[in-house]
């Protein structure tokens, strides 16, 4: 059950409601159904998830601000090219920074680090900012969206690290972990189960309100 009715802009523009809009009501993973590539591939450990969440947040917030400042000078015909160009510049900055500062993290993230630019969350959100009318809105909405996405990423990483490797931050918690959870099938299964739980929660709540 997807809440597509919540897609319109908030009528009362209080700061907190704008943040909450991106964070929960329009959560990138559970409602918009985008951004699965890092969610399935990277969330093997909590540290990797935190790193990719920081990269996605950095790219989303900085390109959101840049594009909403530039929204009056971008012609409609080349909008998509400008969006992707701005996002790719910020992704390059983040990728070079991580490659220089944290080499082993860069190896662990591999191809998924430059692929942040093609993340549908970023393109979906920032293509709206060129239409919108205030920089504050894009700032709050991008912070909310990236916080919502980061929460899901870090939670999935936490679950998969505990069940898949039996460790948490290099401390062995139990023997005989379910190894398949740490591989790609486990990523798909964990995300599926999480989505089902959220659906079940929404359905239960809807049933009680009636």
């Amino acid at each position, binding site marked *: *059950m997807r809440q597509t009715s919540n897609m319109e802009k908030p009528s009362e523009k209080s700061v907190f409601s704008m943040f909450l809009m991106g964070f929960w009501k329009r959560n990138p993973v559970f409602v918009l159904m985008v951004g699965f590539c890092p969610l399935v591939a990277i969330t093997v450990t909590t540290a990797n998830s935190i790193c990719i969440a920081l990269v996605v947040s950095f790219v989303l917030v900085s390109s959101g601000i840049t594009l909403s400042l530039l929204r009056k000078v971008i012609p409609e015909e080349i909008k998509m090219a400008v969006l992707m160009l701005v996002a790719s510049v910020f992704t390059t900055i983040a990728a070079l920074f991580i490659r220089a500062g944290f080499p082993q993290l860069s190896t662990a993230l591999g191809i998924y680090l430059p692929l942040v630019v093609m993340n549908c969350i970023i393109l979906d959100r920032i293509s709206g900012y060129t239409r919108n009318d205030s920089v504050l809105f894009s700032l709050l909405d991008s912070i909310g969206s990236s916080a919502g996405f980061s929460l899901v990423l870090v939670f999935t990483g936490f679950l998969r690290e505990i069940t898949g490797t039996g460790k948490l931050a290099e401390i062995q918690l139990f023997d005989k972990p379910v190894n398949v959870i740490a591989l790609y099938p486990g990523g798909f299964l964990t995300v599926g189960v999480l989505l089902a739980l959220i659906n079940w929660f929404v359905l239960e709540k809807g049933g009680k309100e009636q």
Partner: protein
Amino acid sequence: MISNQSHPVLIFFSACFVNNIVFAQAIGLCAFFNVHGGFKASFLQGLAIMVINIAASIVFWMFNAYILAPYNIAYLDIVSFVLIIVLLVQAAGLFAEKFLPLYRFDLFFISANCIILASGLLNTGYGFNFVNSMAHSTGIAFGYVLAIILFSGLREKIEIAPVPEALKGYPVSFVLAGLMSMVFLGFRGLLGL
């Protein structure tokens, strides 16, 4: 592991089955899960991505060999590859509008597709020559088409199956994709790849 010394057929096989882009590397999932409609819609989307992927790989290789590598500006690969993808997808959209007006392609999910960028970056990462990078990109594209055709069959079965209310739609697709991904794990280690 594949390298530039491997045979192109082996590289193709590795990219198509052993390291299948969707089930063994989890790249391009947005387009993969957001295709609505039956077999025909899935097949057309796969075909569009295949054509653009192969065309883009030729441009990527030439751009990398004649501009990025000689002038020592390899750090600009993400920016330049993204621009090439956008231009190619816009051109393909105009072409499709003119010659195939009946089919509505979702250009957002094609231009925002990780697969095309990933194949370009992987080719330059492995340091492939032209033949090998063509084999690799074609393998990736065929792997995507294979995955989306297999999955559209499963999706048609799921539509008439009694699925619990909470699992309907995306969650059951993810569980199915997990099972398919386990199937593709079986290719691992085949022919020493």
